[in-house]
């Protein structure tokens, strides 16, 4: 706990800071409030001057219009499906690799870590052209496999999980070994149960990263039915020609669930962000 020195001059500066922060907070929140209010507006409200802050008549027709214009639920499902599988694969592969690199000994470990570290320096934009050619030669354009597999990058999550695994006391592992546990049971009975919270933090981080993925799904999907949510919304925006009230309804349905989840996971999320920052 922090104990602050309080005196009058400092209190003044705190009030000033608070006023400033509140103004900034209003600016940060304004787009969300505008979005929610506007999703109930009519086209006439949108085009009226002076601007209307509240809908003239609250109606939900913009929401049903979204479903008529685009296969919105299908986009949602595509996003959930690909993100969940990508995250599960990433975390599964990373846990195995992290355990192997931290708690087991085999030749070539240092080299392996170097290759993984260098893979983090190469952004997707560098590899996406050959990857597209590979995926299309395998006839995986417009498939879930084509969306998911090329985006599996595990180096970052592996290093993150490695830092958690390294914090497990060696005594604990030695004790399990003395009890007759082999490498596999040491992992499932000692290492994973003791880092459960940490692994789920890594999973949350990886989930958010995959959820916002944009460039690759844009490249690899032509068929409307395989578009993920970000790609679907981009095309909705291009094709709906300034029907802003409808776009706001789509935005509400995309943003609101995330904000609600955010309220529950904020603490974990903040912790994982600060952890990656402090590590460097």
């Amino acid at each position, binding site marked *: 706990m922090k104990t602050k020195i309080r005196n009058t001059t400092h209190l003044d500066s*705190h009030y000033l800071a608070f006023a400033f922060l509140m103004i900034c907070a209003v600016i940060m929140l304004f787009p969300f409030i505008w979005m929610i209010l506007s999703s109930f507006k009519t086209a006439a409200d949108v085009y009226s001057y002076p601007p209307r802050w509240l809908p003239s008549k609250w109606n939900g027709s913009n929401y049903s219009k979204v479903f008529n214009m685009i296969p919105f639920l299908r986009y949602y499902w595509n996003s959930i499906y690909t993100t969940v599988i990508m995250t599960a694969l990433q975390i599964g592969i*990373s846990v195995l690799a992290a355990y192997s690199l931290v708690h087991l000994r085999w030749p070539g470990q240092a080299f392996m870590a170097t290759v993984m570290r260098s893979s983090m320096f190469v*952004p997707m934009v560098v590899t996406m052209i050959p990857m597209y050619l590979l995926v299309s030669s395998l006839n995986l354009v417009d498939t879930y496999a084509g969306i998911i597999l090329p985006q599996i990058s595990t180096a970052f999550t592996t290093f993150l999980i490695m830092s958690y695994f390294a914090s497990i006391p060696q005594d604990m592992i030695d004790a399990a070994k003395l009890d007759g546990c082999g490498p596999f049971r040491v992992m499932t009975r000692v290492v994973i149960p003791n880092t459960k919270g940490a692994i789920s933090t890594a999973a949350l981080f990886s989930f958010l990263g995959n959820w916002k993925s*944009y460039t690759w799904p844009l490249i690899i999907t032509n068929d409307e039915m395989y578009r993920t949510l970000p790609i679907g919304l*981009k095309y909705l925006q291009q094709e709906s020609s300034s029907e802003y009230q409808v*776009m706001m309804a*789509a935005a509400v349905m995309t943003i609101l669930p995330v904000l609600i989840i955010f309220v529950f996971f904020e603490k974990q999320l*903040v912790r994982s962000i600060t952890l990656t920052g402090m590590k460097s």
Partner: protein
Amino acid sequence: MKKKDEHPEKAGSGKVRLFGKEYHTKEMLVGLLFIVPTVAFLIFTFVIPVIDVIELSFTNFSMSAGTMKNVGMDNYKDLLEGFFTAEYWEDGFGQSLRNTVVYSLLKLTLDTGLALFLAVQLDKNVPLKRFLRSTFFAPVVVPMVASSLIWIWFYDPNVGPLNQILQFLGLPASKWLYHESTSMLSILIFSLWKGVGYNIILFLAGLQNISDSYVEAARLDGASDWQLFWKIKFPLLRPITSFVIMMGIINSFKVFAEFNVMTPDGGPLGSTKLIVSYIYELAFTRGRMGRASAAALILFVIIFVLTQIQSFINAKKTIDVE
């Protein structure tokens, strides 16, 4: 890597010598087995594509024209030709390079500066601290494309609330995304709104890590808020500042999504066409994958050099401080 030289002996655990080191056979086999999936994905998503993209960059491979011939350094020459002339920066790859550099510099300075400033304010003894922090952080977690839909409306020259506010105040309206002089700025404002919370979290964590004894000692010596920040807090935040800047460079040079959503065709007069948009259009709209591969590798070299310079400067500064 952990050293585990003293393993508790177990009955029946065989050992094997490889490259002059002794390994437990079973442990080694399990270790190799567990690394197989990582190796497989590294090969298919990293090693092979990197080799391929280098090879492609020396060809005139085109999906549309169906050509595939080795052209040596031609792609690189064409992309960098006239680098030192003014016209180079007006069009094509040069323009996208200039736009990217301008965007990155502005984003990096404004985002870092604003985040640091807001974090310092939040670190003070203000009420509603948690609520305020969450408010700044919320735009970071919401989906990018969905939130850019809101801002596209804000920027609408006719029915956007921003112009309506300007009009109400008697100020001249702006064309925002639809004019070459303001399009970049418009996306920059959006990306600051969207991203500043991330760095606030990092700086705030750093500030809260600073021991109160430093702060109290400085206060007793009569240091002002201003001195306290620049003489004590800022130097102690150096590792985080450096991390923020490094991530900022990498992320702003490869930015694409917000630009592609807000200005799908590269903006008025190509004013918001960035390197990644250039590569995307060349490879996937015009099918010229050879040339696009060369552009992608140039981008990689730029990012790599910048991060190396940054970590070199940081290493030097850290030594200076000690």
